[in-house]
């Protein structure tokens, strides 16, 4: 069995589902001959032809709207926004139509589409190529927002996203596209949506995160372990709808919680988790909930971007603060 990276797992999932479901088509800018600017669709057009791996005109609005139309008429489109920072022109079609079609037609039409986008910073990219804005989508009813953090979860969650009868935003943390390889059986087995994954058991503090920050958070847990602190690490994986029960159970055990995310702090998705802890887990908590996030600034150009992104040290410090109360 081959060891593959996260981005290779994306390609593997697309290829599996295209081979097994003729309704699946891929569309976007440069997804065809070029295989996508990150190579997520590498080889797919050669394998499945230009009618199923479609290079569109260079217009994100067109990609988003075509996707709604394709999906409402029986196809299963997987659309690519070339970068998360380019997704804004797509939002009207995603919010007003993809996410709303089922309810506004009482189920007569629905939109089984996936909108993929390379997400987040940390690759020394030009301006507008490093955005983390999943919180703009988690407030939209009717959507699922999914973010993988490992090759295996990228494969299983993308298969689940394509098979889901509702629209799914699939945000791929590009900083970890090629970070490491692991064995991912190409067996077409999907992972469940709407559930968190507990990546590490612990008893002293719960670290909740998603996407690229899973890496720093696991490293922080290692560092804390060396100091005798046992951290539990939860990867949301499906950000919306939130599997809060898994977080609540963990916090009932550890009594402390640190939320880590790359997006800006104010009204980032960490605020929702903190609010739910306040509503449901107040009396389990021994310390205030901590958030380690991006600042309320635009992500800076790359000379400064690593100072913006949550670091292992910031996570460790926050965890320790919850233990000193």
């Amino acid at each position, binding site marked *: 069995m081959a060891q593959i990276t996260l981005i290779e797992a994306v390609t593997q999932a697309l290829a599996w589902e295209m081979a097994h479901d003729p309704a699946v*088509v891929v569309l976007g800018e440069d997804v065809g001959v070029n295989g996508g600017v990150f190579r997520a669709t590498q080889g797919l057009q050669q394998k499945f032809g230009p*009618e*199923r791996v479609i290079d*569109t*005109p260079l*217009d994100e*609005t*067109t990609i*988003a*709207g*075509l*996707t*709604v*139309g*394709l*999906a*409402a*008429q*029986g*196809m299963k*489109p997987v659309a690519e926004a070339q970068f998360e920072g380019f997704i804004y*022109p797509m939002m*009207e*079609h995603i919010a*007003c*139509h993809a996410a709303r*079609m*089922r*309810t*506004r*037609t*009482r*189920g*007569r*039409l*629905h939109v089984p589409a996936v909108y993929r986008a390379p997400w987040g910073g940390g690759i020394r990219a030009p301006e507008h190529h490093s955005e983390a804005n999943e919180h703009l989508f988690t407030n939209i*009813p*009717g959507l699922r927002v999914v973010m993988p953090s490992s090759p295996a979860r990228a494969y299983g969650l993308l298969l689940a996203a394509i098979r*889901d*009868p*509702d629209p799914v935003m699939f945000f791929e943390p590009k900083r970890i596209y090629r970070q490491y390889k692991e064995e991912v059986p190409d067996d077409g087995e999907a992972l469940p949506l*709407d559930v968190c994954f507990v990546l590490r058991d612990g008893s002293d503090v719960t670290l909740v995160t998603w996407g690229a920050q899973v890496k720093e958070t696991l490293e922080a847990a290692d560092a804390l372990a060396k100091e005798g602190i046992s951290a539990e690490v939860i990867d949301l994986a499906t950000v919306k*709808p*939130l*599997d*809060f*029960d898994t977080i609540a159970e963990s916090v009932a055990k550890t009594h402390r919680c640190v939320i880590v995310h790359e997006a800006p702090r104010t009204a980032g998705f960490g605020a929702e988790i903190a609010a739910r802890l306040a509503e449901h887990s107040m009396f389990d908590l021994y310390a205030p909930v901590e958030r380690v996030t991006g600042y309320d600034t635009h992500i800076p150009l790359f000379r400064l971007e690593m100072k913006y992104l949550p670091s292992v040290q910031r996570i460790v410090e926050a965890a320790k603060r919850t233990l000193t109360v």
Partner: protein
Amino acid sequence: MSTCASFQIEHLQYLDAEGKLRAAAPPLAKDFEQLVALYRQMLFVRVFDAKSVALQRTGKLGTYASCLGHEAVHVGVGSALRPEDCFAPSYREYGAQFCRGVQAREVLMYWGGDERGNDYSGPRHDFAWCVPIATQCLHAAGAALAYKLRKEPRAAVCCVGDGGSSKADFYGAINVTGAMTLPLVAVIINNQWAISVPRKAQTGAQTLAQKGIAAGLPCVQVDGNDLIAVRAAMDTALERARKGGGGTVIEAVTYRLSDHTTADDARRYRDDAEVKAAWAREPMKRLRAYLEAHKAWDEKKEEAWKAECAARVDAEVNAYLESKSQPVTAMFDYTYAELPVDLARQREAAIAREQGH
């Protein structure tokens, strides 16, 4: 310097404002049985529209978008489509939709604040009414792409206004239609007014039809008050689309004789003289004159059919007024195919609140 490309826009009119044939007309002009059926459909729409406005004025309907003056273009578009084609309306093309089996009670349900209006009896694959301007054009293009990929001889048709033709979505839709040779017919219903903004403020282009030229599409301007011209343009465009010949842009020139919606007052921004002049060109009068001149219609038939329309509309209105609101759970039940756990809890809370707990 040499010319590397040149273009012209044809204007199509058969039936002038007086109901006289102005050009060698297509067979439809002599098919009085079909013309009468289409005229009756137009008259039904007009009766329905007046009743709907009255319902809003008496507090029995929410904001309503009238289609007064659009009867020829709406019925011309709707009657040209086959059931398997796909229609993507904006929000006032009832005449087209009635041709496709949508019921008047469903229009009333929608403007009466109930999503079930969009679960309509027309072809189940047709798109719902679309308020975000021009977005429906790209959905129709997506439908056209689906049919092309599956090699189905079907076309998609979207309607958009003169204002909507300024939006990126419209340009995107016709552009991709040209680039991918999609079976899409984009009908710009130029009724001269986008709420309060006149046609001349939308674009410096001489015609709206010519926007299709930049997309590499055949395009034509038709007299949108001439049913025969609208049908002729639609028939040509649909045949080309279904045979794999690609898309078309049709600009149908008409006039919005009503306010934008019942929430609007057009007297604030346009002259009565302009509206009065537009009434002289309206679509019903000319078709009636033509039919009467050929002994296919008369005053007696007119009055009898109007009475029939009024009775049918009353039955539809009653069905709408007697319909019960959906239960509170309806706002949750169609948000996802399967309700996520956290939303199911909100649903339970809403039920408990209904039950007074």
